[in-house]
């Protein structure tokens, strides 16, 4: 009885959220101007990245610093698959592209799926050496992985056009794509969290030895979490490439990982709702605060333009949030937990 109630409650809330999200996508596409739509696109892509990054870092508790690597792989795979051979021959100035690079060509959906799959397979092979040891080794190895991917991208001009990057990628990403994939990602991640796999991931985070003693194959669970987050990071990278229409190795520095880390820590490590809120807060907040960089009129006092003021204020807000909500905005709670709490209070 109890469990049936839990299932239906959760399903109803999920359904309501999906419908709202779909409606919002449609509404935004038809109402907002191009600038706003672009920000929402960005937010949607970062929701994909943050929610999937949170799966390995927050839910499974394995401190890894890999997203920029997998986002780069996803972006490059999508770019190579979308740009036609004519465009490639025109752009690749440093070296001629390999024939197979020229030959590969798919539609957008397949490009995204392949971006995700290749990232996931790489994560899978990476997890064999990495998860043999515990602790901070994962952070170090994944940090190195991000650098290696970037350097490979710079040094294989036959595939990636080196530091020039790939331009004129067809602009397939729109709100329906980014919003749709974001909704799918959030649903998939939540479905994982609320299953035996998610429980096992949390168990690994809380006490790995106790999880083993309960029959959980912790290596398999960590690998699953790592590969899944790599998959969605790859897909997110693909969407990003088709949104920006031009990519270069400089886009995928450690700063990207750092930004995602801020988002999930701010939102609350381990909370999917927190990752979404964190993304909106950071991405939209940074855009909204652009006025701080411009000349202002405060109570009749004219101030000069101060480029960088925005980051100062943003950092202050971050510090304040971390002081007063040490576990982030949501802690480890989800939206559905808040509903539960309210009912219990009544």
């Amino acid at each position, binding site marked *: 009885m109890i*469990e049936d109630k839990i299932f239906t409650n959760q399903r109803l809330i999920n359904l309501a959220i999906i419908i709202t999200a779909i409606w919002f996508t449609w509404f935004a596409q038809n109402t907002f101007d191009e600038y706003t739509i672009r920000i929402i696109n960005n937010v949607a892509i970062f929701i994909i990245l943050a929610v999937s990054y949170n799966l390995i870092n927050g839910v499974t508790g394995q401190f890894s610093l890999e997203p920029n690597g997998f986002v780069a792989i996803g972006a490059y795979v999508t770019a190579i698959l979308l740009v036609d051979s004519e465009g490639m021959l025109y752009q690749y100035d440093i070296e001629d592209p390999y024939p197979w690079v020229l030959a590969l060509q798919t539609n957008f959906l397949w490009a995204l799926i392949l971006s995700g799959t290749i990232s996931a397979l790489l994560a899978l092979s990476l997890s064999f050496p990495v998860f043999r040891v515990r602790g901070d080794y994962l952070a170090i190895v994944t940090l190195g992985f991000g650098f290696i991917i970037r350097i490979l991208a710079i040094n294989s001009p036959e595939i990636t056009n080196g530091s020039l990057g790939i331009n004129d990628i067809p602009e397939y990403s729109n709100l329906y794509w980014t919003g749709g994939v974001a909704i799918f990602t959030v649903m998939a991640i939540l*479905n994982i969290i609320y*299953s*035996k796999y998610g429980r096992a991931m949390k168990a690994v985070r*809380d006490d790995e030895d106790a999880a083993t003693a309960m029959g*959980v194959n912790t290596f398999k669970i960590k690998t699953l979490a790592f590969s899944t987050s790599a998959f969605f990071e790859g897909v997110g990278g693909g969407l990003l490439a088709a949104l920006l229409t031009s990519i270069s190795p400089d886009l995928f520095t450690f700063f990207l990982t750092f930004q995602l880390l801020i988002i999930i820590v701010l939102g609350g490590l381990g909370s999917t709702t927190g990752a979404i809120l964190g993304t909106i807060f950071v991405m939209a907040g940074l855009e909204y605060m652009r006025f701080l960089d411009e000349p202002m009129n405060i109570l009749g006092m004219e101030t000069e333009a101060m480029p960088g003021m925005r980051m100062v204020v943003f950092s202050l807000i971050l510090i304040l949030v971390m002081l007063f909500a040490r576990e982030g905005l949501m802690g480890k709670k989800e939206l559905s937990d808040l509903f539960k709490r309210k009912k219990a209070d009544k």
Partner: protein
Amino acid sequence: MILEVCNVTKKFGGVTAIKDTSFSVKAKEIYGLIGPNGAGKTTMFNIITGNYEPTEGDIKFHGQKINGIKPFKIVHRGIARTFQNIRLFKSMTVMDNVLIGFDYQASYSYLEAIFRLPRFFKEERRVRKRAIEIMEVLDIAQYAEELATSLSYGQQRKVEIARALAANPQLLLLDEPAAGMNPLETHELAELFFKIRDEFDITILLIEHDMKFVNKLCDRVMVLDYGKTIFEGDIKDAIQNEEVIKAYLGDFKHA
């Protein structure tokens, strides 16, 4: 014989934690492993559960050698344990803690979970029902949705036992289950273990210091002292054995 420990020796560098120890546990009995601190009792548990590999000797479960098998696979074979210091999953509810024990028994795949296919619901309902049954036996079902760490010490013990029972063991290893409990709680716990043994049809191997508790509960005991076996057999004989009294039970007669 459900569990046979054959001539096990465990060395950590130059230190011999366990020296040539043998004992065997019959099905459905409650067997006690006693001895002073540092005698190697917990080391013995860690060897049985596969966390340590014995330097010499073998562990046999249902006649099959299990040393060298990965710890989580030994759980699948039917040996579950609790810890000396309670180790619950802090961020999870009592229900979720118990459900971890069902991890290997709920048979749906990763993709079935992601796409919420029918088998996910079927299996999830089945294990949740079983979890509630186990919690009812231990009288903690009313706390199912509470955070595990918000319960009292005694209740947390029970959650840990429920979690181990959820792994569907034939042999349950309990590491000092009565530690930190008052005499009344200890008494209740002993009754509970009889109930668990009969209800779940399992064998219990436990480490304990509380001799009253051991006396009440155990059919047979083994006494370890600095890695050596000094006694194995009936509990009644143990408390009259000279060597045992000297090593460990010194003040038992006065107690």
